[in-house]
């Protein structure tokens, strides 16, 4: 420390000495602070990468699925012992037995019940449905021999994809050593391979991972969102137009305004409670129905749509309103002919963002029973159904290894929809954004 550091500096020169003394320390603090900021941003970005990386690495394999080819003998003794060829009889026959027979034929030296049961376990229970379909479509198959591609069991599928470790002790993996050997034998002669997994996109839910698909959930989401859009768009835009263009500035509109802002921040699960108590318990509407889901999500997204639409209306300069009013147009004509068309891109962007939020929402839908296990693809707004995020929730809870992959697959589908929606909103905003 030099002498000038004692006492208060009086002159510029003394001050400069003092300032210089502190510079190194202050610049170190500056660099540190900057590094914190950079680290925070980097951490945030790495979370994004990590999250998407995890989901993709776990879920992309859902695009392929293990199929096994077997020589099926359509044994008339099994399918139609009475020889009636009536569709009713063909429908209830024991097709599983055909699969079993084919497996025994392929591996003739397997003996004993436990070993046979393990062998039968290689093929999905969906196989018999597939055979039944073929026979009902063409009863002429009966008595013939045909090479058929059948869905493999999910454990086999997991082994093929390397998601079951071969080196793990036998009792810790879900395939026995014998099963692994059979799988290898089938693979060696090309009878067992991974193919494009169409079932994932065309099937509804199932207890068996290899048969479970997202179609039911996608259709359920679509129906629910359709109702949400049909209700929340007109109501939201109507409310925004009223508040922005018509409402007198008084207590009532103040209350409505504060209320909308607060509603936007109410936890979504509270809307679920409302749906349960009001729509289901009070009005007696059906549980698990997209109609009720759509109603709840309408109330949930309404504040978002209103706030975005109001911002878009506000951005239209007053001069345009004055021009129309000056021509003798009524207020409503001004809005319909001039203000609303100009605000439309912003309004649509808000609506899409609201819909994207509704698509990802699941908590309130749990409340109104959209968590049921539903195999059929819903056909209407009153059919019981589930939605994509709830499907993710349901599958994530299941213990089978195959469902981890399905869950990630469903997440990828969900994220794809969200990306498309948000990208549309961004494009819309950039393309039609006007600066006055």
């Amino acid at each position, binding site marked *: 420390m030099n002498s000038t*550091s*004692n*006492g*208060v*500096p*009086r*002159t*510029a020169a*003394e*001050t*400069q000495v*003092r*300032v*210089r*003394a*502190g*510079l190194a320390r*202050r610049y170190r603090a500056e660099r540190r602070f900057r590094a914190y900021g950079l680290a925070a941003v980097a951490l945030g970005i790495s979370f994004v990468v990590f999250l998407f990386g995890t989901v993709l690495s776990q879920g992309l394999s859902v695009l392929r699925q293990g199929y096994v080819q077997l020589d099926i003998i359509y044994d008339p003794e099994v399918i139609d012992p009475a020889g009636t060829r009536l569709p009713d009889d063909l429908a209830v026959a024991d097709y599983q037995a055909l699969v079993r027979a084919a497996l025994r034929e392929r591996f003739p030296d397997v003996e004993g019940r436990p070993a046979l049961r393990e062998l039968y376990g290689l093929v999905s229970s969906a196989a018999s449905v597939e055979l039944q379909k073929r026979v009902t479509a063409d009863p002429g198959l009966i008595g013939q021999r045909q090479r058929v591609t059948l869905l493999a069991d999910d454990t086999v599928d997991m082994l093929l994809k390397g998601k079951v470790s071969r080196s793990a002790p036998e009792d810790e993996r879900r395939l026995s050593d014998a099963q692994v050997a059979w799988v290898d034998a089938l693979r060696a002669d090309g009878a067992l391979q991974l193919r494009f997994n169409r079932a994932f996109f065309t099937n509804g839910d199932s207890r068996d991972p290899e048969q479970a698909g997202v179609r039911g959930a996608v259709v359920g989401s679509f129906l629910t969102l359709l109702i949400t859009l049909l209700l929340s768009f007109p109501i939201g835009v109507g409310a925004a137009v009223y508040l922005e263009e018509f409402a007198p500035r008084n207590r009532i509109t103040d209350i409505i305004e504060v209320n909308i802002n607060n509603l936007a921040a109410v936890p979504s699960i509270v809307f679920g409670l409302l749906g349960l108590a009001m729509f289901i318990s009070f009005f007696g509407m059906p549980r698990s129905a997209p109609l009720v889901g759509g109603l709840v999500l309408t109330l949930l997204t309404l504040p978002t749509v209103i706030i975005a639409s109001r911002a878009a209306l506000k951005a239209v300069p007053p001069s345009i309103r004055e021009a129309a009013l000056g021509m003798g147009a009524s207020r409503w004509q001004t809005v319909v002919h001039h203000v609303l068309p100009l605000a439309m891109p912003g309004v649509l962007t808000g609506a899409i963002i609201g819909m994207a939020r509704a698509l990802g929402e699941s908590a309130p839908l749990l409340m109104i029973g959209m968590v049921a296990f539903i195999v059929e693809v819903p056909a209407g707004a009153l059919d019981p159904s589930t939605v994509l995020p709830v499907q993710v929730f349901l599958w994530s809870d299941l213990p089978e290894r195959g469902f981890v992959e399905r869950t990630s697959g469903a997440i990828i589908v969900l994220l794809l929809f969200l990306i498309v929606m948000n990208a549309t909103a961004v494009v819309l905003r950039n393309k039609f954004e006007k600066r006055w």
Partner: protein
Amino acid sequence: MSDKAVPPVREGIRTIGQVTVPEPVFACRDVNVHYGDKHAIKDVNIDIGRAEVLAMIGPSGCGKSTFLRCLNRMNDTIESARVTGLIALDGQDIHDKRRDVVQLRARVGMVFQKPNPFPKSIYENVAYGPRIHGLAADRGELDEIVNVSLRRAGLWEEVKDRLNNPGTSLSGGQQQRLCIARAIAVNPDVILMDEPCSALDPIATARIEDLIDELRESYAICIVTHSMQQAARVSQRTAYFHLGDLIEVGETKKIFTNPQAKLTEDYITGRFG
């Protein structure tokens, strides 16, 4: 400090009048400023002397504020701004890599157009500079600095009982004097003032002008103003800017009574402005 000789003003500059002074604080040679594509300051050469008030006048958008902001490198905070040429403080280029902007700004204080006290107490506003630069060893020294600075800014009597009130609770004129106190608390050599009175009423303006006159003894002051009367009242030298060019520099009395350039004369006689 290695004193590097400031080159003499080159031949053929367009500015009329005496641009140099003996032993200047600031010496500016061929300063240019670009904002993106806009050429805001063109080849400005001027010296700023010690213990003098230099007034910069000119119509709106003529570049006088931009030039002022070059002197303590405030233009660094604007992304698109590019400053070229030599600006030497005590013979040393302020853009020199070894020169530090923090140190520079401690030497060259600034007061802005609109009073901008920090959202802190009056005391903390004045103490802020000494604090960050480590000028006071303890609370007693800090109190002393705050006291002296507020006194010199002529604000002490008005605020001594409410040093802990927020700076924003003062009137506009008081806020501006607070900002001056804040600037002189770090003992600068030069104080830059960017239209310091444009947001104030006539009485507050008069007080600030008196204050500038007092402060001239200890600091070089460079003031941008829109009011020619103010320039005439407070300054010893006046520089007239027009569309980025420095048209004329000279003693204030001379500029206002006998301008050499046509543009200066038109401006002063009120033909445009």
